[in-house]
């Protein structure tokens, strides 16, 4: 590794770390314990973990197939589809939430369908939170996986097919395992994005304690009253995220090759 990479790398790290340190230094940590044990905080935390977890699962279940299709399909339209997948990335989250509302809301055509089928409404429910988070987070998974798939090429997949493995077996036993490092980072990206999601959630799902008010929404609500306590809550969010990522990222995700 050339040493010239170190200075920019350190700058980059500083850009990331220093603000957080600044936050720590400036925030009133004595109130931390009482804040994070308040029922509203705990409710928000619980909801955040559940919804971010669920939406990460949804991202993987939907996004991995999409990434594989985009990377491996030779079809013509794929280039266009690849650009389309980026849409939620660019859309300001609030507008994304509006779009979901227009689609799945009471007057949206899918919303009408759902309501006539199940009698339930989608907005203002925990399900809506998960959908909003999946909407904003999935592109991160798809784009990072797709890059990795293209970079890796398909020679092992071809070998597997000559050994009689049907496409599904190839996918399960070759494509997926070789994709693990990239999947690991993709999962981290989408989990983090889902955990921090605010705009689309509040627009599409609303904000009600225990139902739709996730930790970021709680942070915003707090910030209206008292910035310091909001910062303390945000630190809790960080803590949780780092813990979850560190625990949930087994060695297997870090690369199969020594």
């Amino acid at each position, binding site marked *: 590794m050339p040493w010239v990479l170190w200075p920019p790398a350190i700058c980059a790290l500083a850009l990331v770390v220093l603000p957080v340190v600044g936050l720590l230094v400036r925030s009133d940590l004595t109130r931390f314990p009482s804040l994070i044990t308040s029922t509203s905080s705990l409710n928000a935390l619980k909801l955040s973990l559940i919804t971010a977890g669920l939406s990460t699962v949804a991202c993987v279940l939907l996004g991995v197939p999409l990434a594989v299709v985009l990377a491996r399909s030779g079809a013509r339209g794929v280039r266009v589809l690849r650009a389309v997948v980026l849409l939620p990335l660019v859309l300001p989250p609030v507008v994304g939430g509006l779009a979901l509302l227009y689609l799945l809301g009471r007057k949206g055509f899918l919303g009408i369908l759902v309501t006539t089928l199940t009698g339930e409404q989608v907005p203002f429910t925990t399900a809506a939170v998960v959908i909003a988070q999946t909407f904003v987070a999935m592109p991160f998974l798809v784009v990072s996986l797709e890059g990795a798939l293209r970079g890796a090429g398909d*020679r*092992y997949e071809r070998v597997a097919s000559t050994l009689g*493995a049907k496409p599904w077996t190839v996918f399960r*036993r070759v494509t997926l395992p070789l994709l693990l490092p990239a999947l690991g980072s993709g999962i981290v990206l989408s989990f983090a994005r889902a955990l921090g999601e605010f705009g689309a959630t509040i627009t599409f799902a609303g904000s009600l304690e225990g139902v739709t008010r996730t930790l970021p929404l709680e942070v915003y609500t707090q910030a209206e009253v008292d910035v310091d306590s909001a910062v303390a809550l945000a630190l809790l969010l960080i803590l949780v995220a780092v813990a979850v990522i560190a625990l949930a990222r087994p060695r297997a995700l870090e690369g199969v090759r020594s």
Partner: protein
Amino acid sequence: MTLSAELALRRGEFTLDVGFEVPDGGVLALLGPNGSGKSSVLGCLAGLLRPGRARITLDGRDLAGLPPHARGIGLLSQDALLFPHLSALDNVAFAPRSTGAGRAEAKKRAREWLTEVDALELAARRPAQLSGGQAQRVAIARALAAEPGLLLLDEPFAALDVDAAPAIRGLLRRVLRSGPPTVLVTHDPLDALALADHVAVLDGGRIVERGETRKVLSAPRTAFTARIAGLNLVPGIAAEGGLRTSGGQLAGIPAEDVVEGEAAVAVFAPSAVAVYPRDGEHRGSPRNTVEGIVDALEPHGPVIRVRARGDDWAAGLAADLTPAAVAELALEPGTPVNLSVKAASVAVHAVSDH
């Protein structure tokens, strides 16, 4: 099962246009210089390359339209390409697993194949922890474990050491004897001889020579084949201490897989054949002597190749002599000679009966 294939493929400036057949249990050796299209042929058969025109039938069943996994092939490609995330055992078990065997059954079969290639002690290793030759052995086991209906082997003996190469050659002989039609790419005429009943020589994407291995290798018609082959090949039945030929006996060293009473071929280089005037007394160690008549003299690089005619194994026999020896013996077409070859320089190989 009989393979019959007609393939046409473009890869950049390179064009491939070949057609061939391999009968059931038959082995076709593909020879040819680097870049002549040998691996491309295997790629087309395996379904990894999309030929412009393809007719591939295995026992009447059309393969050309099928995806690779449905073709029932086993492919050993030129670079081993072991799955980096699986142990050697799981690599070998991959094919049985994929074709429906249970986990335990697949592992059992994988262990058997690893034993066959003498790599059982490597079972738990990842490919990154194997040496070049070890990886090659595992890759061979993996291709064979597919128990394919059509076996495609690209230079299976590359990277193998002097002990492993004959052992694997023996293994392949055993497998191929009763096995599926096989296409074998090799640079070594002895591999072709030991394993293949037919050879096809590729050059520039075309088959320039083809036929029974023995015939092509003993009487090559192209310069390339001549350079890699040009051996004396005497067919017969394996017998104690050598070969029973049409007219007698030829002493030689039998290879490990030779079974007495079965078809075999004696192989020896023209350079190993000594030529004596017919009147000469001869009672030395060379046990194999036959009477012949000089048929032709061909310059052959630094030596002169003497072609003989005569009965038994003298027919078509080639002997390489230095020009000085030819001059001294005053050889010319029609000269009666005794031809002799030491038994120790005659290798007797089993051949398939096609």
